[in-house]
């Protein structure tokens, strides 16, 4: 198995000034993310998702255990940039990750930090902006863009490093439905067309239906790990974890409770409709 990110019994705790005891957030976590996959990470508030994500590119360093990115130990100071340019990170609030007053200058930030020559930076910036569909707005000021547009600029800013993997930490939490759709489309495009490994942390179940794998965290541990079609049908268990299931699964679940017998693994609306239909026609026949 070719893994791009690998954690080995990763432990982390935040120290606080008031508290004597550090607050343990990750408790011996083992996770391997395969190259080219789309992994969704779910979990209730405070379950440690963001903390885990910050270990993937060495923003936080493990207190115990190890994190490897393409075999590089993230805790080694000398290879930090190697780790960071392999694993890009997009955060929730687009306003707080844009550094420049002009879209293209912002996208240029990472390749500039990596010391590429000007012509190459130009190329990377233009490519990245085309991928997210913001090329025509390259000379705009970010604060005049919509939330979804800002978030796509932020994605371009990460793509300009040509990362192998991009970690998204609730990228749509502050966006309107249109912006959310655009961002999710861009994320899928990364995986499908550019073979970038995608890790998506989210509270919106609809965004996970295209994932290859769903990882559910609870109190700093992984409690469920599997393909969405296997994970979501356990509706009761997911609810116990303080999580929702996609609406399609929810409908089938409710119908199922009413005595109809459905399979609960329909994730797209089409599948869901088909499932209901076949059950009907099957029952009628």
């Amino acid at each position, binding site marked *: 198995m070719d893994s791009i990110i690998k954690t080995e019994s990763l432990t982390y705790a935040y120290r606080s000034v008031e508290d004597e005891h550090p607050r343990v957030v990750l408790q011996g976590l083992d996770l391997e993310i395969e190259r080219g996959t789309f992994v969704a990470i779910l979990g209730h508030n405070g379950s440690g998702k963001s903390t885990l994500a*910050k270990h993937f*590119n060495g*923003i936080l360093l493990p207190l115990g255990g190890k994190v490897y990115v393409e075999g590089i130990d993230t805790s080694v100071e000398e290879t*930090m*940039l190697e780790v*960071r*340019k392999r694993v*890009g*990170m997009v*955060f929730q*609030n687009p*306003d*707080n*990750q*844009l*550094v*420049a*007053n*002009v879209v*293209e*200058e912002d996208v*240029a*930030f*990472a*390749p*500039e*930090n*990596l*010391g*590429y*020559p*000007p012509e190459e*930076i*130009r190329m990377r*910036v233009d490519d990245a902006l085309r991928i997210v569909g913001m090329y025509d707005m390259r*000379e705009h*000021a*970010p*604060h005049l863009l919509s939330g979804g547009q800002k978030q796509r600029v*932020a994605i371009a*800013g*990460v793509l300009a*490093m040509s990362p192998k993997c991009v970690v998204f930490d609730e990228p749509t939490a502050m966006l309107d439905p249109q912006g959310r759709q655009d961002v999710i489309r861009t994320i899928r495009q990364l995986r499908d067309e550019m073979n970038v490994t995608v890790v998506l942390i989210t509270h919106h179940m609809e965004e996970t239906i295209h994932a290859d794998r769903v990882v559910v965290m609870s109190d700093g541990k992984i409690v469920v790990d599997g393909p969405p079609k296997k994970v979501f049908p356990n509706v009761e268990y997911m609810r116990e974890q303080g999580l929702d299931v996609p609406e399609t699964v929810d409908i089938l679940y409710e119908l199922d409770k009413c005595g109809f017998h459905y399979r609960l693994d329909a994730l797209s609306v089409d599948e869901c409709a088909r499932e209901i239909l076949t059950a009907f026609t099957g029952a009628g026949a």
Partner: protein
Amino acid sequence: MLKDVTLGQFFPGDTVVHRLDPRTKLILVIVYIVALFAAKTYAAYALVMIVLIVCVSLSQIRFTTIMKGVKPILIVILITGILNLFFTQGEHVIFRLWKLTMTWEGVRTAALMILRLIMLINGTFLLTYTTSPIALTDGLELLLSPLKKLRFPVHELAMMMSIALRFIPTLIEETDKIMSAQKARGADFDTGGIVQRAKAMLPLLVPLFVSAFRRADELSVAMESRCYHGGEGRTRMKKLTFARRDFGALILGAVFLAAVFALNRVWK
């Protein structure tokens, strides 16, 4: 009300003034400020004013826009004017009231001082209006780069400035939002004396500061994630280059400064 704050705004354009290298413009603004404070005679003042008017016309920025920059510091200008009006020694007394004397010399000094301050603001705002903040901070970084040898944190300073400029619109927007939210709950920012208004602003500052710190924290993580590690080994997409017009402009600047000094001597 906050929309009036034009600090750090940039109006893109394609004029000579816009195209000059930011380093040239920074030097010229310094030349302009020196000239403005060196000017002692009406003739010298007139020359500085003509140069300002020519530059503003060349930049195609409207004079009303340029004047807007004066508004936030109107009070400072007025106080300076009043102080000059009453505390300038002179012989041609207009009137005497208790211990205050107003002289013709006072009127003249006050008028010139007000004019000087307004022109000072106009000149510096012309710089920020016609230069993108990035070009400006890049220019500053390069101009100051000799100081790096003295371990002066030039890159850090430039980065701080550019980030401050980047966040001004965001923070203004946020202030407006918090103000609206508090107005909706009955806060009153528009009536009462200065003290009362300042007190009304206090509950505004607390959430603003909290959010600014949170933003700074998130921004630093985002910057690190994008491989920021200080100025060392960093390259730029757009390299600044001196063109022929920059040399021309610098020569004109030198001539202008010389002319101001000459006019100071010729017309007493």
